[in-house]
């Protein structure tokens, strides 16, 4: 009885755990340090969103201003447009960009010729390794009046026009180029999930008279559903956190209407105009929305399926 109590103390259990799993702990240590240094420590700096930050006074020395920076953003004439653009662009990226790698993976999975499959995979991966600045540079050149896209349009009898100066086309260009660049890379995880589906199930299904299509619906998709859902949750969690890099490389004042998003706005105000506190406030607001979305999706997913992040 007494001995059992000793064994149950936290210290004892931790010690035992350490002895048993020492190598695992050591293995995880670098990752842990990385997160503490680069993800948790900088969070302290987020308090400048509530301050009037001056570098010489430092984070702790700058005077508090309450929520002034947030109200300034909410009152800004661009508030509505920034939110709308960010949401629309990410929702389109999600709707069109999320299924694309799954479809590619399913198609590749059905290919019987190993050679063809490898070649296709390599070709679709490659764009992932092209630097974003090169991709956007190509896109800008192709979109010009004398560019490749316009050559194609003109070939089919269309009229030449500067495509990247048309706000109506901006989202299409942004989303489509994103898919082109990431579809191959994104399909890797699904291909590995597909490899894990039990082959006996296919056999059983085909004995029951299921064709290729029925097999896809009833065996393959349920088999990779957990992966899809986890990926979806993570993707939704990042819904609002669109990087500014691609936007600032692709947009110009004539497409601000559809192109200007929260992060590009932060870039312009924060880095170019050195208004650190304000841009931190906008960024913080963005992160809070992201956080809420993540929790929400997780809840929904837990309700309707058995898969969830926690």
């Amino acid at each position, binding site marked *: 009885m007494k001995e059992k109590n000793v064994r149950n103390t936290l210290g004892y259990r931790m010690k035992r755990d350490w002895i048993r799993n020492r190598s695992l702990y050591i293995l995880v240590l670098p990752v842990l340090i990385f997160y503490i240094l680069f993800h948790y420590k900088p969070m302290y700096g987020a308090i400048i969103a509530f301050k009037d930050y001056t*570098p010489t006074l*430092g984070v702790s020395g700058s005077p508090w201003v309450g929520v002034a920076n947030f109200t300034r953003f909410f009152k800004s004439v661009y508030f509505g447009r920034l939110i709308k653009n960010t949401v629309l662009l990410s929702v389109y990226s999600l709707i069109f960009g999320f299924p694309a790698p799954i479809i590619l993976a399913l198609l590749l999975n059905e290919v019987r010729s190993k050679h063809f499959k490898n070649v296709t995979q390599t070709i679709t991966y490659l764009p992932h390794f092209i630097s974003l600045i090169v991709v956007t540079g190509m896109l800008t050149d192709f979109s010009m009046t004398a560019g490749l896209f316009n050559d194609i349009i003109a070939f089919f009898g269309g009229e030449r026009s500067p495509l*990247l100066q048309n706000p109506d086309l901006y989202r299409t260009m942004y989303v489509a180029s994103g898919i082109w660049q990431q579809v191959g890379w994104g399909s890797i995880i699904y291909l590995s999930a597909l490899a894990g589906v039990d082959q006996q199930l296919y056999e059983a299904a085909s004995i029951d008279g299921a064709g290729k299509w029925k097999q896809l619906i009833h065996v393959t998709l349920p088999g990779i559903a957990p992966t899809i859902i986890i990926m979806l949750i993570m993707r939704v969690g990042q819904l609002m956190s669109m990087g500014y890099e691609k936007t600032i490389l692709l947009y110009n*004042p004539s497409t601000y209407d559809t192109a200007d998003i929260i992060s590009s706005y932060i870039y312009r105000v924060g880095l170019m*105009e050195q*208004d650190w506190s304000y841009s931190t406030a906008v960024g913080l607001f963005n992160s809070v929305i992201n956080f809420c979305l993540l929790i929400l999706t997780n809840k929904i997913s837990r309700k309707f399926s058995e898969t969830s992040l926690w």
Partner: protein
Amino acid sequence: MRNKKRNAALLMAATMTAATIAGCSGSGSSTTKETTAAPASSAAAETTAAGGAEAPEAFSYPMAAGDKLQYWCDLTTTVSANYSNLGDTPFGQGWQENTGVEIEFLHPPTGQMKEQFSLILADGSLPDLMEYNWTVDYPGGPEKAIKDGVITPLNDIFAQYCPNITKYLAENPDIDRMIKTDEGHYYVFPFIRGDENLMNTIGLMVRQDWLTELGMEVPTTIDEWHDVLTAFKNEKGCIAPYCFEYTNGQYLGADPFVAAYGVNRSFYLGSDGTVHFGATEPGFKDYLATMNQWYQEGLIDPDLATLKNDQVSAKITNGQAGASMGQAGSRMGTWTTAARATTPEFTLVPAPVPTLEKGGQAEMGYIENPFSGRASVAITTSCKDVERAARLMDWAYGEEGHMFFNFGVEGESYTMVDGYPTYTEQILNNPDGLPVSQAMSAYIRGNYNGPFVQDIRYLEQYYTMEEQKQTPIVWGQCNGAAHTMPPITPTSDESKEFSTIMNEINTYRDEMILKFIFGTESVDNFDTYVKNIDNMGLARALEIQNDALSRYNAR
């Protein structure tokens, strides 16, 4: 003691001025003699006046060994093409030898000066000397930089250790006013353009060989421009007769077609002596209407908002465009050299700021201030040996330093020919095959910027083509200098409010201008556009500018 020293310094400055007026100026490297002589006499004066007080020692360059100084500055591309540190260049070495000060040069990564500057401030370990645009790019302005304890006010330092710049400022009261804050503090060793021809470096240029072929003159009015561009389109098959990148702030601010309508894209000094915002004035509407018409007629590059420098260069040199704007050196010169490889007759000539009526002279036009704030050096509060730093900087404003910064080393990068400093073959026809701009940048700072007074004689030799030499005269044909905003300094609170307002307005303006030009927004809606800008707080922004201007005028 402090006061006595100041008196001594004032006296010293006075003696120096007197000595120069007496005829010492222009006689080659006389500064060393002057600086040695002047303190001696003032020291003597002080001893007599104060009766045996401690006398400052006679001063001469090079200085005795002492602290190594850290000097932070952007490394311009023409230097970084061949050197990774300014200290490796003959310029950097010569500067240290001549002054006797050991300098450690620190450079931010190319194109990241502002970001690096913020990081250095946040970090708190400031280099001794920092070259930056303290007038415009320090959030809150230069007075705030002093109050924040980042930089040292220089009034006492100028008076005590800087006879050269003190003398220069005494001779140029208009520049003296520009480089002070409203409170009267000096804060930098300034970069000054020493001649008005150095201030109008951007303008229109057009293909002369085509004009000759078509029997046309260099256009001077908006109507003539319309005819010329139409001819380029129809006769020469240009797809982009007039071509420049419409998102590059440097060129937009100088746009001669906006100036033709007597306005400016941003703030300018009106004839009534107050600050105006050009983009909401009636003239701007006419400008937009013309641009929209030209755009519809295919006279302007249809891709104007997505163009970058490379594409503009390509279009000009391969004949898809016939007119553009920019600098005489990096654009007109570079393009002409490049295009002549395939088109020997290729010639670009400068065109003046267009007018609406034939024969008039444009009222507006792009003329910079002699002092814009750029590349000016402040002594930070981290600097331990302020005297050493000040004397190092002051050297450039004396005769010897002036020659060194603009022409380099006599006998190596220039020789005196009939009293005119002439660049050697080393610079103009570099044996290692370096372009003139890079060969110059190794020896001098005269061809870009820095803490010194720029000399026009550099430009006279840098421009090798006849057309380039005409540019200062042709582009200077306007009254633009009267409308350039002086370097005013809003207070720290004002500047914060101002940037909040202008951030929204500028975004909206840039967006709408393009819409008006493309025709996606009718120019008839100009009044709505003006009303929207008013609602964003333009009146308050103008008030801030005007307050700052009246304080500036009162300096």
